[in-house]
């Protein structure tokens, strides 16, 4: 890829604003957006495409790693984000009910690790760093 991301986004936004939106308006499409708004939509859509492409590249490896990391704790419930999330949620609830802080923190650490991995795979293609906490 020779163009940097901002250039690609600007190009896509300008194309939507200058060509797609006026064409819709000429065609008489009810509620067609004005070019300025369509340009903004195009830029956001382009960013979403970049995020989706990054996610698509990484999701299989990410999910396999999360599954492997949770397998010893959760067994078959480790397979797939929703099943795993529900199982971690039950573990956390049980730890809270018994006041077992060690177990609760362990579950939260697993959830935090998977959340960090989900963030990283989403933004790998747009070059964003990990979330930066507010310094106290």
């Amino acid at each position: 890829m020779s163009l940097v991301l901002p250039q690609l986004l600007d190009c896509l936004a300008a194309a939507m604003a200058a060509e797609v939106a006026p064409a819709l308006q000429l065609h008489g499409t009810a509620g067609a957006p004005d070019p300025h708004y369509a340009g903004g939509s195009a830029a956001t859509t382009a960013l979403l495409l970049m995020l989706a492409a990054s996610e698509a590249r990484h999701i299989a490896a990410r999910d396999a790693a999360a599954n492997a990391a949770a397998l010893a704790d959760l067994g078959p419930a480790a397979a797939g984000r929703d099943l795993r999330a529900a199982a971690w949620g039950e573990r956390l609830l049980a730890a809270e009910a018994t006041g077992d802080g060690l177990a609760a923190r362990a579950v939260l650490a697993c959830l935090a690790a998977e959340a960090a991995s989900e963030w990283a795979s989403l933004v790998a293609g747009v070059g964003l760093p990990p979330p930066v906490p507010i310094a106290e």
Partner: protein
Amino acid sequence: MPAEHLAALLSARWGEPVAISGLKRFHGGSARQTYRFDATGASGRHEALVLRRDPPASLIETDRFTEFAALQAFHGSAVPVPEPVACETAAFGSPGFLMREVPGGMAAGLLEPEPYGAHAAAIGAQLFTALGHIHRADPAAAGLASVAAADAARLRLDHWRRAFEADRFRPEPIVEAAFRWLARTPVPAAQRVCVVHGDFRSGNVLHDGAGRLLAVLDWEMVHAGDPLEDLAWACDPLWSHMSGRPGATLPLREAVAAWEAASGLAFDAGAFRWWQVFAQAMGATIWISAAREIVDGRSHDPVLAFAGTLPYRFHMVTLSRLLEERW
């Protein structure tokens, strides 16, 4: 938004034929649809105006006229806001209001690093001073129903927990854990029940690019409550532009000092820790609600799709770490 509707409304209000030009809709702002335009009367009178109206599907359920009342309450005060002009139930196709455009105003983009450049400290001082001034205001002056100081946190927690339960569509153990933590962790009564902006953050203010804060926008979530709710939201890491400083402006201590000086309130670090978790649980709920609009096919707005993706994942990281630290 047909220009003819605006022309008819303003012609009636001005008592002369009014022509509309330069009508364009701003991108973003999913809670309301926002347009700017120029109105020119037959006499030569000219005004640059902004229309905010309700969309068919909204990121946040809003009271239609609360935002207008808040602008009326703060216009001409130490809190810079756009001048409110008119509020209408049906004239705009959906409930909405007109306000004067703030010329030369710029807003920081969420992913824009260091949006204020060399003026970060100056903007930060004005930003947190403005927030302190908001917190001096009596909710009744903005037409807001007051709440008991001891109930402020619980009412907000109940509100957002209900929203989360209504819109969740898959297991969310981090958000569930956050709401449970908030429910079982005591929080002191509000030092003062005041006007809470409800969405006070870097993207909701206009600046001139040269270190001057021009206006505080987007009052659709305004309510009476605990001022620390606003302070925690304004200092949330999502709005820090990856800088580690609230709103990419001042270090936290200096931001808090500016807020204390303007509000006349003392910073309560313990209560603030509760409101920090609340802010992230609220944020997560907003992003889940946005995603639900897309999942259910009620909207194809890319802003909602973005909200349900990137800010959601950001808060999953920060909220899980916050809970792990505070268990």
